[in-house]
């Protein structure tokens, strides 16, 4: 399975960490960012999320983030998995797994990668509220 994926189904955090760790026995630290579906946004109660992506372009942008992270940080491997489709409150949305010999570079690469994902990847979220489904126009 590829380290960078967009998929509808849920992912296993353990499986993703093991997949990244398999890159090298020299890995000494793994930092994970997990984005989950929370039940509020801007004062509104949210009962569900629905993610849409631009097939092809979104995957390419995630692969580009991985390649740039490997080039710009002293890390050994990084994986990115993002779900699309309907996601229930409490479910997982996105997982970034950065691995390096020492922890500091993995922390930095992980934070950079999720920020870059939000900035450059054509994925859109709609939130289900009491008033119906609302597209989220900007990522905080």
């Amino acid at each position, binding site marked *: 399975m590829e380290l960078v994926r967009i998929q509808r189904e849920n992912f296993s955090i353990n499986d993703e960490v093991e997949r990244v760790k398999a890159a090298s026995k020299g890995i000494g630290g793994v930092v994970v960012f997990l984005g989950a579906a929370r039940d509020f946004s801007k004062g509104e109660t949210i009962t569900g999320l629905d993610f849409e992506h631009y097939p092809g372009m979104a995957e390419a942008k995630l692969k580009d983030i991985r390649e740039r992270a490997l080039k710009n940080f002293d890390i050994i491997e990084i994986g990115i998995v993002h779900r699309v489709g309907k996601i229930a409150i409490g479910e997982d949305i996105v997982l970034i797994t950065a691995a390096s010999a020492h922890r500091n570079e993995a922390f930095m690469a992980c934070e950079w990668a999720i920020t870059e994902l*939000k900035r450059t990847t054509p994925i859109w979220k709609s939130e289900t509220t009491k008033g119906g489904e609302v597209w989220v126009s900007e990522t905080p």
Partner: protein
Amino acid sequence: MITVRFFAMLKGLAKAESREYKIDAPITVAELKSILKKDFPALSSILDGRSILISVNQEFADKNTVIRDGDEVGLLPPFSGG
């Protein structure tokens, strides 16, 4: 023929997922925007603003990017992944 694809809230405003246009010669993104503003009045103010990004063949484009026959154009509202 070129294909223009609408995403997220733009699909609702355009009441379409995509629209095909026959072009006789290459056009720029700016020229395509003018056509879209006429055909989709609901998108007009958004297309004038800075929040929408445009892609051509799945690469980010600017107003001067040339669109040729067979190209795919994406109208991308602000991203909200993650």
